[in-house]
């Protein structure tokens, strides 16, 4: 009788302690903060290999975009941002392959880097596809449609940082194959000669695009914008790129 009473008491004690143990386990599982989502940026240096792009002074566009991509990659890596580049050397890549790389990177931002002799400052372009609701299987030609609004937000962050750096910025919408095929916030960045040199002469305009000082200014502003973009996502408590918009 005594033994059975003790056994019953032990069982009751165990039953009472179970929920608290579960709670404790749940609390202990919540205790360590979840590791922050990996923040990845894709940099696409436009053109390359057999596709030289625009002729800027004596230089092909592909050389300027690659130099800017390398410079920006270094700045982002130094700030703890993971960077995936579509090319690291003078190789030919189709726009489909570039979009594949960007989509496989599961990135929170993608910048397609271009250079041009036309206009001045920096031109930012977002896809002109009409915004659409996300679907499970997105059509390749309109994959960006579900991300257009997020891309415009990213464009806004880039615009602020570039203007803060004293650069002239022009905003626009365009249909660019690589951007339209990407399923993450994506902006095409076209670097044109800075204001002063652009007004002086064609040679001065071309020289400014190849000027390391001007490239560094643009790259630092873009890096600052992407750091801001990362912190915006963190403050909103959401993964700004990995989830559907």
């Amino acid at each position, binding site marked *: 009788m005594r033994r059975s009473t003790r056994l019953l008491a032990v069982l009751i004690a165990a039953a009472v302690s179970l929920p608290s143990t579960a709670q404790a386990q749940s609390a202990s599982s919540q205790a360590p903060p979840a590791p922050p989502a990996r923040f990845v940026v894709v940099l696409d240096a436009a053109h390359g290999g057999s596709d030289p792009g625009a002729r800027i002074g004596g230089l092909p566009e592909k050389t300027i975009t690659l130099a800017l991509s390398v410079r920006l990659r270094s700045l982002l890596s130094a700030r703890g941002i993971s960077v995936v580049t579509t090319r690291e050397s003078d190789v030919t890549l189709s726009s489909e392959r570039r979009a594949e790389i960007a989509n496989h990177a599961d990135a929170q931002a993608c910048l397609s880097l271009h250079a041009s002799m036309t206009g001045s400052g920096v031109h930012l372009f977002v896809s002109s596809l009409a915004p659409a609701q996300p679907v499970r299987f997105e059509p390749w*030609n309109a994959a960006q449609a579900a991300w257009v609004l997020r891309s415009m937000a990213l464009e806004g962050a880039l615009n602020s940082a570039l203007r803060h750096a004293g650069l002239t910025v022009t905003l626009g919408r*365009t249909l660019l194959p690589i951007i339209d095929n990407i399923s993450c916030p994506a902006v095409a960045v076209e670097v044109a000669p800075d204001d002063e040199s652009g007004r002086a002469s064609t040679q001065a305009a071309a020289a400014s695009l190849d000027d390391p000082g001007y490239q560094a200014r643009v790259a630092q502003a873009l890096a600052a914008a992407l750091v801001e973009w990362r912190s915006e996502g963190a403050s909103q408590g959401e993964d700004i790129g990995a989830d559907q918009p």
Partner: protein
Amino acid sequence: MIPRYQTVLFVILLVASVVMGAVLWQLRNRDRQRLLEVENSLPTQAPEAAPEQQATLYVANDADGSVAAEVFSLPLPQNPNERARAILGKLLDLYAAPGSTHPVPGGDASIAHVFLLPAADGNPAATPSGATPSTENRAPSGPELAVVDLTRSFAANHPSGLETETLTILSICATLHANLPRITQVRFLVDGQPCATLAGHADLTRTYLTGETASTAAADR
């Protein structure tokens, strides 16, 4: 010894041959002259018999990346295809002129053809490359697709860059829609063939919606 009648016959035949040769030479010269006169009388420029009308052209500006409406008076044919071609010719003439705000060489000769077709329904922005719109069950008064056939030299000489190429396409689409409101979609060909990009950037495989480009042009202003 040659008989006399044979000598006479030989001389007659010789004279006849010379006369016939001279007549043939004369006929040849006369026909040649007539052909040259026909060639010279062909017009080297289309007659501008059409009355002058006002047309709104959306003119691009590289300096600020804008597209602004400007009104011009120009002779416009009644035929919609020729009308669209004349308007775009004027727009490209502006771009080819010295001091242009959006310098693009080529001018009016850069437009090979413009032809209008009944427009397809649905979302044409997602129309895959090479797809042609259905022309069945379409009322002739419905929305139209303008096919703009550019010359290869225009594409080859167009400045390369995202902004400049986008502005060219935007201004063409907005200009067509402003003057021929039934044009709701625009497709581009180069020398009659589909082309991936205009000069390395702007996508030419898509169908452009004039409503969207017009609103973008208005926003640019």
